[in-house]
């Protein structure tokens, strides 16, 4: 049996590997080390990231390559874009994806567009790691699932793993990719363990993964909702419905052929996303089905998403806010 580690540890391993292998990889972010400037008091790497994802990196690679930043997201992300365009391969931690609010321009108008605006003469090998999703009772400004914004932007790639092995493989791929990649870390499953290869591990950006085979209906998930889909599939199996579960992994590029391939088998599809319903991944998947997949369809495509509302604080409300297996099962029954 392969060893099991948490998704967080997988991220940490990927960062160690990438920094070890390539001196151009540097790490920037708030408290990625912690306690900077206090070496004289015997304090070093006090945190290693707010969740601990960057533990040990400062000690291993030093203050030149692992840098705590001020709380200046636009500034350090913009600097990372400039560094990427001039020869470094920066990995930036944008603590919560909600902070896109104060960090969008370097992604929207710089990283995504430099290559195009410069007629193909620039490369921006930037990786942005960022926490997404609800589940920590962190309320409206620390729980959003905003990868729809970055997936919408031509010039960026966006990925979101659902398990440790994919986290490791996708993060390594992201760092080594010559385009800017947004790497989303679903905070509710950060501490969940799963098998993960030791050493190098490659997962291609742009390919969905089959998380469970089935023949009656396709459940498409991403990050945490893959687990929701799997739970629903398990329950559906007990009542005789065979659900296939597809883990998107990559949101841009979107694995259109992978999705259509599964739809071709099942003829029915439910897409589950923790983002609200508008202008997101779930709509894209549904739109794909009704365009290229139209002849494969045997029923409506249902979106099971968060409601069109901010994320509430109260545990009771937050639990009701996020998609769950019951809602997926209900959707499957509706299109049955």
């Amino acid at each position, binding site marked *: 049996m392969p060893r099991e580690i948490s998704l967080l540890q997988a991220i940490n391993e990927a960062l160690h590997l990438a920094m070890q292998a390539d001196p151009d990889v540097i790490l920037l972010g708030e408290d990625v080390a912690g306690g900077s400037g206090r070496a004289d008091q015997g304090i070093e790497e006090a945190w290693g990231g707010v969740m601990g994802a960057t533990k040990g990196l400062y000690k291993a690679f030093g203050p030149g390559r692992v840098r705590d930043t001020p709380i200046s997201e636009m500034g350090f992300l913009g600097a990372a874009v400039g560094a990427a365009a001039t020869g470094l391969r920066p990995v930036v931690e944008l603590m919560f994806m909600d902070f896109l609010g104060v960090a969008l321009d370097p992604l929207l108008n710089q990283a995504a567009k430099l290559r195009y605006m410069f007629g193909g003469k620039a490369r921006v090998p930037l990786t942005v790691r960022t926490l997404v999703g609800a589940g920590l009772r962190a309320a409206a400004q620390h729980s959003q699932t905003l990868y729809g914004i970055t997936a919408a932007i031509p010039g960026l790639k966006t990925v979101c793993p659902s398990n440790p092995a994919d986290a490791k493989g996708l993060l390594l791929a992201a760092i080594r990719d010559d385009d800017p990649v947004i790497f989303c870390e679903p905070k509710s499953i950060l501490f969940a363990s799963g098998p993960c290869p030791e050493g190098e591990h490659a997962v291609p950006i742009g390919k969905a993964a089959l998380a469970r085979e089935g023949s009656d209906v396709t459940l498409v998930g991403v990050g945490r909702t893959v687990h929701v889909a799997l739970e629903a599939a398990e329950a559906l199996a007990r009542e005789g419905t065979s659900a296939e579960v597809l883990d998107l992994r990559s949101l841009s590029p979107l694995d259109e052929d992978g999705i259509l391939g599964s739809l071709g088998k099942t003829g029915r599809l439910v897409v589950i996303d923790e983002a609200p319903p508008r202008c997101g991944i779930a709509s894209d998947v549904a739109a794909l089905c009704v365009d290229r997949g139209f002849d494969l369809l045997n029923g409506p495509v249902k979106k099971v998403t968060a409601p069109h509302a901010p994320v509430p604080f*109260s545990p009771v*409300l937050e639990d009701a806010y996020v998609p769950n297996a019951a809602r997926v099962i209900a959707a499957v029954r509706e299109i049955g």
Partner: protein
Amino acid sequence: MELPHSRLLDAYRAMRRIRAFEDKLSELVTAGKLAGFLHLYAGEEAVAVGVAAHLSDRDTFASTHRGHGHCIAKGVEIRAMMAELFGRSGGLCKGKGGSMHIADLDRGMLGANGIVGAGIPLAVGAALTAQVKRSGGVSVAFFGDGASNQGQFHESLNLAAIWKLPVLFVAENNGYGEATPNEYASSVPDVATRATGYGIPGVIADGMDFFDVFEKAGAAIERARRGEGPTLLECKTYRFYGHYLGDNLAYRRKEEVEEMRQTRDPLDLFERRTAGEGWLASDELRAIDAEVAAEIEAAVAYAESSPFPTPADVTTDVYVRY
């Protein structure tokens, strides 16, 4: 500076309330009774209370993730705050906001804010309302040393300065932004230095000393009310707990914390001063302590008995109309 007896007692009561509230939260989290990210204001009481002592409901506060103290200083009801943190329908925000979004517009409290620096322009906007409507109100933006490196700090101070808005910018410099010391993150040790770049007064107060904050905030607020524009008031302070409850605290020496707690506690300093000057008697303060302790217990009881919201509440209050 001497204050009327009743106002001295009010100030002490507010500071004690904050301290007791925060200590209680720490206890509740340890007991596993509370969820979410809680950033406690203990240690910084003199700042919020010293400023609030000049204000009334027509004046506004925009706060931070560390917002309980600002709420309490601004007169927000404690039991509704507690119920909010418990995620109950009787909470200030019906349980929808939680600690990082606790607000009470009726008290002029424009909300805690989970986005570092984002409260600053909100305060500027409230000051704009006051100016346009000639309400005579003054608006206060609280923010940390860490927030002073956010672009929103810069844009807000410039805007308020050119429009001479009635706003007070209060930098709560507690030496850290999360685990990062301010002396590392900021290019200047004193946030107040930056006032020069906006052509406004920059003033430093001892944020552990209610009287110093009170005096300097008072002057700045008077200036704002006179229409002479904003002031940047930096209060040197310290947070007694970690950045949030759960923080490993590895970025600062235990002795540093101990020393601050022993020698710089704003409640102790207040008591020493008022006793020394013969303004307040110890038993007056002990009576307040007891009152406040009871209030806090009552608040917890209220919170625990308040019903949870229901799933249908998830989608209400998004819009006035949609």
